[in-house]
């Protein structure tokens, strides 16, 4: 019971130290103010204890100066903490451009992971050391939350949309993975571990793990099987817009707006094609809701992303 007892959680990501510094600052602020209040209350309570039942202390109505003093000081402190916290949160919200990607699907009560190279894992995620990892997450049923305490990282996994978060591990080893959003009966058992490995070990693991085909390749097959390719042709003009070079660029819609083509946009366009119609194309695409699983969606998105890279490669030989 006493082995591995600790008061301070392990720091295993680039963000952990930063979050902990802010946490410690808050601990210091709290200790100072709590200590101050406790001390004053204790001193006053003892020093001014009632000595006779007839004593009538002189009333003090208050002091505007003091009120301003103890309004402005906490205000200043809290605004500083806010600024620091917000800056860090901004960093947490934006995965670095160099991130490797992992897709996460939560369902009652397990975590499913897919690597771009096609490896799949359940309740266990292998990642390389010192490399930012971007997680694109969705849920098949209820809301879950992906929580790795050692990385100080947590984000909800919401059905019907993609959420993203990222981390960069700084220590090798096994780390707890929890679902922190209550999700039903076996909520407490919906966890596993994140295994951080040296780059070399990771490569070995990748090659050893069973991988049928890359996500993009699986997506390409699905793309054909569902008949997408009959309208969305690689070159020339199909009935739908070409998807080459789509990902990461802006798309002009019939309403005159432009939207960024990210995972969420592509997902919406497959499941709810009428929501955002690309300018110059008729709204004829049927919905694929119910015809495609969350994992299938991820594969198709990976395929569409790969079209983008392919085009780049052609442009800059």
């Amino acid at each position: 019971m006493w082995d591995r007892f600790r008061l301070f959680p392990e720091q295993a990501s680039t963000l952990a130290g930063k979050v902990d510094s802010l946490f410690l600052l808050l601990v210091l602020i709290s200790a100072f103010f709590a200590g101050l209040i406790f001390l004053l209350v204790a001193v006053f309570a003892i020093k001014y204890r009632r000595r006779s039942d007839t004593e009538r202390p002189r009333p003090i109505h208050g002091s505007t100066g003091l009120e301003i003093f103890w309004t402005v000081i906490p205000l200043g402190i809290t605004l500083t903490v806010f600024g620091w916290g917000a800056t860090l949160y901004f960093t947490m919200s934006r995965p670095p451009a160099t991130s490797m990607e992992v897709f996460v699907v939560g369902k009652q009560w397990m975590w499913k992971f897919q690597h771009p190279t096609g490896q799949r894992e359940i309740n266990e995620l292998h990642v390389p050391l010192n490399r930012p990892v971007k997680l694109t997450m969705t849920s098949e049923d209820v809301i879950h939350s992906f929580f790795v305490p050692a990385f100080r990282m947590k984000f909800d996994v919401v059905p019907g949309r993609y959420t993203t978060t990222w981390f960069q591990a700084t220590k090798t080893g096994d780390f707890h993975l929890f679902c922190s959003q209550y999700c039903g009966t076996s909520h407490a058992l919906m966890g596993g571990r994140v295994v951080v490995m040296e780059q070399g070990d990771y490569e070995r693991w990748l090659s050893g793990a069973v991988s049928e085909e890359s996500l993009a390749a699986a997506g390409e097959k699905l793309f054909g099987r569902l008949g997408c390719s009959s309208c969305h042709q690689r070159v020339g003009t199909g009935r739908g817009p070409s998807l080459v070079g789509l990902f990461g660029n802006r798309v002009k819609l019939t309403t005159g707006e432009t939207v960024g083509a990210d995972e969420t946009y592509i997902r919406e366009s497959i499941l709810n094609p009428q929501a955002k119609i690309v300018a110059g194309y008729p709204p004829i695409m049927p919905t694929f809701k119910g015809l495609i699983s969350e994992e299938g969606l991820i594969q198709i998105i990976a395929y569409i992303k790969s079209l983008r890279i392919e085009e780049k490669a052609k442009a800059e030989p």
Partner: protein
Amino acid sequence: MAEHPSTLAHQFDDVEQQHEASNLGMWVFLITEIMFFGGVFTLFTVYVSAYPEAFAQGSGHLDLALGTVNTAVLLGSSFTMAMAVRSAQTGRRNGQVVYLLLTMFLGLVFLGIKAVEYLHKFEQHLVPGPNFSFASPLAKNVQLFFSFYFAMTGLHALHMIVGVGILAVLLVQAWRGRYTADYCTPVEVSGLYWHFVDIVWIFLFPFLYLVARHAT
């Protein structure tokens, strides 16, 4: 205390205090009603901006003529209610009875028309649930629209039914000549409630019937 009129509750000092308290009480209650319906309006605002197309298709399947007639009917009932309150304030018994009857009648007409609309929706399989069917690629989102339609108009109709019940009580008391220029707080306060229910409809009507109609 010198004298305590029979219409004055024991906790109040005078009629004026009682009148002001009742009025304020009703206004506070109406604020809770604003927030109650406001919650649904907030959700509706979000969804109508997320799915304008689907909501326009759903809206297109509502009967605009009946909706407009119903709006006029309800505005009319608000007018007759205001007149009923005025009759009470001026102590005219006959006026109270006639206007209360008219208000009740218009309220019931509104509910009747609403029932007809519900029936049509039922026949057209537009009631959300397992029997819902809508021929459009956006059927799911259209179902969302009809979820709102039934939740919002249903809650509103429930308030109407309560209102008609209150009117019935008022009518009996007015018939007995209980409300005079000196004591008409119940009529005034119920009037506030009735007008509020009218206001809810004033917003429901464009939200549900007119939203993006031009787009279809």
